[in-house]
Every structure is written in C-alpha cells, then in structure tokens.
C-alpha cells in the first residue's frame, strides 16, 4: 500500500510576519498557524484588558449570490436568514438531514441577493461541496472566495478605538458589516468575534495584510495566536466545531437551540424539532475544577458513584479565572449549574462543578 505524501501545509499572507516575530507555528486544519508569540496567558490578558489581533486567514469565505440566495440559505442555515437586514450578520449552524452539525458559521448579508458565509478552515471544502450539491435546485451561484481575503480579528475593550484611529475608518456596530477601504483596498469590516470582548473581524486584501498588521502592531495591538483564541472562546463558552460541535451531535444538545428556527424548514429541521420536543440524553455544559487540576479534551466525567456520565470536549487552564475549566457533554440530569461531578484527569479524580454560561462574565 502506498504511503500518502505528507500534506503540504498552507500559509496565510501573514506567515512571514509570524515567523519574524518568533511565533511558535503549528499545523492546524491543513495550515501552518501561530499558536503563540510570547505566551498564551499574556496574549489572553491583552485581549481581556486592551486589544489583541489574530490572523484567522485560514478561515474560509463562501459567497452566495442570486435571486434564489435567500431561499437557498433558509434551507442550508439553521437560523432565520430573512431576519438579516442588508449589512447585518447572523450566527447559524449548517446541519445534515439528521440534524447533526456539519459546521457553524456567521452569515453576512452584503446585498438583497448577496451573502457571505465565513466557514471553519477544517470544514471549508466540505461546506463548499454541501452547498454546491443543494444549490443545483436554486437560482443561485455559490463561489469559493477564500483566496480573496486575509482575515484579521481585532478584539478587546480598546480594539475599536485603537483600530479606528490607526486606520482612520469608522466601524460597524455589533453584528453589522460594512464595506470600507483598508490599505486603499476594498475590505469588509464585521462587528463580530470569538473572544467575548468587543471588537471586529476584518476581511482585507491579502496584498495589504502585512502593512496593516504592522500598522496595528505599531498602534499597540498585541499579536495573539490560536492558543489564546481558544482559551478566550472557552471562557465565554463559544463552541468549537470538531470539539463541541460534530455531525453526530445536534444543536439542541449543544445548547444552540436559540439559533435554530425550525419553522423555516432548513435541512435537519425535523430532526432538530424532535430533539427539542423530546429533550436530549446529553447536554453540553461548562464546568470549573474545584481546586487543583487542568481538564483536557477527552477526559471522562464521573458521577457521585464514580460512574461515567459524560466526556470533556474542551479543557484548559482558564487564564482569566486562574483555574482549570472546560465544556463537556453530560447526562441531561446532571446539566443543572451547581451540580457536583468529577473529572478523570489522567487517572486523578478532580472535583468539578457544572457552571452557567459564560464562565467568564464581562
């Protein structure tokens, strides 16, 4: 049997900057990405207290355009797409027929018949194939426009002030998107993020990515890696596809029922309506470790008698909380905040408590 060739890792337009800054680079979803520059905790704190920026150019973009775009996206996305005004943004799941989560994505309405969907890097190709397959029955064009953009997330309590001053542009409100020139090239600025802090995500021309990154760094915005991005999102309980969300789990058990509007008849809606009506066997919950220990993905969750009651999907040391914390799927009867459980961390049973969202309140 032939050994497959090692896959060539892709690099973002900012790769040289990361290397120059001494970032620790790791493979992530087929990309060579910075996991940290100086340290996860410093970068995490910079975003909670000031302003940090993340190169998230590995994320994919899909443009959906045509007279049938709205009807098509109502079928493909779990939320009610008709509620997005032009210039608006909305979070959705993309589900399969059995209600499992194929991907989660932000959808931006750029025009009456023109939308942009930002996909997870690991799912981009599969999303394109899935959208392409369903688009045949609709008067719509589905285009992969991932190469058109570099994506920079600028997040933190001072992110907007520093950014608008440095680039001389006004910024969209939360969950809005505006077209602006950045580096004299057309760009989209989105009032969204994945950190629990205020800020924006910018889709910019790859050719100006380096000067813009440098300009923001000179203005005091701290370069942050995917390590801090993960601890930040986990503290505010944003799910990560591949960890909390999978094609085998439906949005109801993932506590994403709020972004599923079954009345629109989207793909998977009948399975999700049934899950909502019956309640699910397991629920996704946040938890904190009481005392020492750091939970990690895959750790078993144990009940009062030491019986297996669930599994950790994401676990880390939470820098803003100063303790081990994470998210886990647990038996629905144990999902109530305050419930005491134990996490089996490599054989050591660590006392833990089910918490409410978010773990880190702003």
């Amino acid at each position, binding site marked *: 049997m032939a050994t497959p060739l090692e896959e060539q890792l892709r690099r973002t337009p900012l790769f040289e900057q990361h290397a120059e800054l001494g970032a*620790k680079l790791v493979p992530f979803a087929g990309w060579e990405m910075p*996991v*940290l520059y100086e*340290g*996860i*905790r410093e970068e*995490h704190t910079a975003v909670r207290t000031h302003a940090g920026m993340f190169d998230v150019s590995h994320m994919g973009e899909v443009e959906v355009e045509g007279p049938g775009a709205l009807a098509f996206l109502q079928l493909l996305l779990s939320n009610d797409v008709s509620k997005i005004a032009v210039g608006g943004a909305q979070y959705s799941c993309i589900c399969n027929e059995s209600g499992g989560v194929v991907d989660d994505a932000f959808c931006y309405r750029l025009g009456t018949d023109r939308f942009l969907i930002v996909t997870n890097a690991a799912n981009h190709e599969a999303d394109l194939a899935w959208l392409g397959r369903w688009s045949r029955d609709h008067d719509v064009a589905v285009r992969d426009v991932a190469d058109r953009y570099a994506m920079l997330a600028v997040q933190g309590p001072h992110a907007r002030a520093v950014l608008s001053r440095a680039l001389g542009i006004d910024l969209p409100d939360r969950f809005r998107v505006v077209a602006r020139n950045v580096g004299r090239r057309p760009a989209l600025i989105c009032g969204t993020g994945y950190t629990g802090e205020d800020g924006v995500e910018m889709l910019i021309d790859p050719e100006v990515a380096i000067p813009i990154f440098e300009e923001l760094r000179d203005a005091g915005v701290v370069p942050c890696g995917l*390590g801090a991005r*993960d*601890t930040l999102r986990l503290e505010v309980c944003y799910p990560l596809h591949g960890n909390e969300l999978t094609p085998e789990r439906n949005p109801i058990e993932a506590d994403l029922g709020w972004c599923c509007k079954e009345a629109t008849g989207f793909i998977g809606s009948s399975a999700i309506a049934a899950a909502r009506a019956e309640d699910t066997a397991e629920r996704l919950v946040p938890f904190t470790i009481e005392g*020492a*220990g*750091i939970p*990690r993905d895959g750790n078993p969750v144990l009940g009062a008698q030491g019986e297996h009651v669930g599994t950790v999907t994401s676990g*880390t*040391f939470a*820098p803003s909380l100063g303790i*081990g914390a994470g998210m886990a799927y647990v038996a629905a009867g144990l999902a109530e905040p305050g419930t005491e459980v134990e996490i089996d961390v*490599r054989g*050591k049973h660590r006392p833990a408590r089910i918490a409410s969202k978010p773990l880190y309140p702003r």
Partner: protein
Amino acid sequence: MAEANYPDDLRYHDQHDWVRVEGDSATFGITWYAQDTLGEVVFFEPPEGGTALTKDQPYAEVESVKAVSDVIAPMSGEVTEVNDALSDSPEQINEDPYGAGWLVKVTLSHPEEAETLLSAAEYQKLLDR
C-alpha cells in the same frame, strides 16, 4: 530566565531534567530547554513525599495552558521533600528553573546512576543535534 543556561555544576538527563547531587541525596528539576519548550507553567502536580522514584520513569507532571508533560526521574530514590511553593507560583519553573523552580529532593537509592547522566557540555551537544 530569558536566555538558555545550563550550569556546569549540575548533571543532566536526556529527557531534559537536571540533578544536583549532594552525597546520597539530590535535587531534581527541569532544564531551561524543557521549560522553554513547554511555555508558561500553570500547574505542577508533584509526587507525594515518600514516593519511590525509578530512573527513566515519570514521577510528576508540569502543565502549560495548553499542554501537559510528564517529568522523568533522572535517578532512582525516595522523595523526601516537594517544592510546595510551586503550587502557588508554578511560574518559578520558568523564571528560575535551577533555583526557586526546583521540583523535589530525593534520597538516592542508586547514587552510582549519576555516572550515566550527562555533563552540561554533553547535554548542550544533545540539544544542538
């Protein structure tokens, strides 16, 4: 400690531990290279006092925000003291790996094992490979 540093008076294990041998007892820790690779240590899980350690076997864990790493015993012996200060300030392992960041003190059961360990120069040669 920002710059790589490997004191000449210590012995080194190829799994990135250092040993300060004093007669039949010794102090163990992890090297500058080990802490630099791991990143900021946020948790140290020590062995209990009295635990018997076997050379080349894991005896403790150090964790950074994203990763956990076993600490390998560079020599065999019994734990007589654990650096309790690390439970409140594990970052000492990064800041002062050969001083305040020491991990355990041990009564050696096979002091002759020291001969199998590396000198500072030999250890650095290993890192350069």
